[in-house]
């Protein structure tokens, strides 16, 4: 590259670019290589017994056999499914109501959007500590109840702890759902409603036949990502722990086994089950979307 010759100029810039291509792609390549390596390693570890210190020992399907007979694993499955089945529909229903309301207001719209969305940007840890205080036997909720002369409630009693945690998850995540529904609502052409009004369609009919069908792509997206997030619930139940494993989730069980017990093989087997569950639910969603999601254009 000392003397730039006329005709070779373009070729040399391309040759130079090849070097840059390799350099530019290097960090991302390392990143994806690690992800693929780690994914395969994670699956492989599920077939081993490994405490990190000694060498991993291949034990075949033994981890999975232990899993089947591990009552805490089944508790974790039950609790995780419970959180999924409570939080996802409730979040979507309340979020849709908020979105419809946000779509109607003209003044203070920005304030309401910010207010509803705020907890979602806060650290899960901070939010969980705040709710820990609210659910405490002597905490804010019971103080409010006492002010009204009502008795105290043991919010974190094993029988209702999962509901309490789910309420917190809904509280912190509903604003996000509302905002995405709102942008879905705003993309529906006004003419559809005007035409329906001319045809004499009432508010409910308009909602049922225009709003709901045209929102199905947004709904589908929100169902999929909320399900995936709910399956991996961790931070909330790490801080707001219900007694007697009443809020043990698959993710918190993986964390406990891997990083408190250093049972990497066993924890990897639980991860594999969790991923399997997420995969199945996502595939079912993708398969079902043909039946209820209408893509207009």
């Amino acid at each position, binding site marked *: 590259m000392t003397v730039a010759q006329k005709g070779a100029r373009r070729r040399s*810039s391309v040759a130079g670019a090849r070097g840059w*291509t390799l*350099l*530019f*792609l290097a*960090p*991302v390549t390392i*990143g*994806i290589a690690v992800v*693929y390596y*780690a994914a395969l390693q*994670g699956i492989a*570890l599920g077939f081993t017994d490994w405490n990190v210190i000694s060498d991993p020992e291949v034990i075949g399907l033994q981890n999975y056999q232990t899993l089947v007979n591990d009552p805490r694993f089944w508790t974790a499955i039950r609790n995780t499914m419970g959180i999924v089945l409570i939080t996802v529909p409730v979040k979507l229903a309340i979020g849709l109501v*908020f979105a*419809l*309301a946000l*779509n*109607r*207001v*003209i003044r*203070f719209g920005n304030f309401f959007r*910010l*207010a*509803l969305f*705020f907890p979602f940007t806060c*650290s*899960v*840890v*901070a939010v969980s*500590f*705040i709710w820990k*205080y*609210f659910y*405490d036997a002597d905490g*804010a909720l019971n*103080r409010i109840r*006492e002010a009204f002369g009502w008795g105290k409630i043991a919010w974190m009693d094993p029988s209702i702890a999962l509901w309490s945690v789910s309420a917190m998850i809904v*509280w912190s995540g509903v604003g996000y759902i509302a*905002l*995405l529904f709102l*942008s879905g609502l705003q993309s529906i052409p006004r003419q559809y409603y005007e035409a329906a009004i001319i045809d*004499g*369609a009432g508010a*409910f*009919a308009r909602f*049922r*036949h225009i709003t709901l069908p045209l929102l199905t792509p947004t709904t589908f*997206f929100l169902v999929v990502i909320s399900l*995936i*997030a709910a399956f*991996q619930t961790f*931070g909330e139940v790490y*801080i707001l722990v219900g007694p007697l494993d009443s809020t043990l989730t698959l993710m918190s069980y993986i964390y406990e086994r*891997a*990083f408190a017990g250093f049972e*990497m093989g066993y924890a990897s087997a639980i*991860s*594999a089950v*969790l*991923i399997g569950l997420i995969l199945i639910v996502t595939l079912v969603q993708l398969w079902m979307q043909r039946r209820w999601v209408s893509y207009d254009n």
Partner: protein
Amino acid sequence: MTIDVVQTESDTSPRDSAPPPVRSRSRSRGRRVEAALAYFVLTIGALLILGPFVVTILTSFRTSADMAVNPGLWPAEWTLDSYVTAFTEVPLARMILNGLFISTVATAGGLLASLLGAFALAKLKFRGQRTYFGLVLFTLLIPGTVTLIPLYIIIRSLGLIDSPWALILPLWTGSAFAVFFLRQHLMTMPVELYEAAILDGCSTPGVVFRIFLPLLRGPLSILAILNFLASWNDLLGPLVYLSSPDQMTPTVGLTYFQGQYTSNLPVILAGALVIVIPTTIIFLLFSRQVREGLAISGLK
């Protein structure tokens, strides 16, 4: 049922016979009722969502003694003791600096890597480009759970446990989402920009930083905010990789409080509010970018 609704409405105001003024008046009354209902729903929602924060702020100004004797939510006497305790008894200031350092350095490096990768994918030509892009995109489908334990083993073998670099280096390889997002934007920009600059004697990195970087300010700032929030709010990462209080980030540092101050709730709540301040500032300053960023990424 829906047919009933349609019919009742057309019964009360038949399309062709009802005079327009009456119709529009009844419709505007319907609008007003809807709007009132909307304000009612949103006010309840805002109260329920912001209320706990207000109660928490009030409680953080109380003493635990006041809380024990005084049943309500209002402080009998106001004090900053909890904040003082949070900063003096626990290395909270240190933790905040750790958190800011990790989030900033990780975000900056991650964006640089993603930008370079996206540029190579959008504007440079190489063999297997489509396959490579496919491989990048496919990593988005691999859940973090499966890589958690193997990644921990890699970080451990690099001797990075209890070091901020354990949290920074993995992010320096960029993210598949950022690569995808930046590539989409780069694709809309003419390749002639690149070729003309090269012919004028500009180097390839020069083109990236002097021509495309300024054009990508918007998308890059969305990604920066998003990554900063994710990094600052991360719990699992610091929990797994950090152990000493001096290395801790504030998010996990708060759980470390918990052991020491179980009986002193105001201190824990003061700490919780302090760690929410940086993200709140970002949220209020860049609320539009935060919303857009989370909406397009669909993350968290």
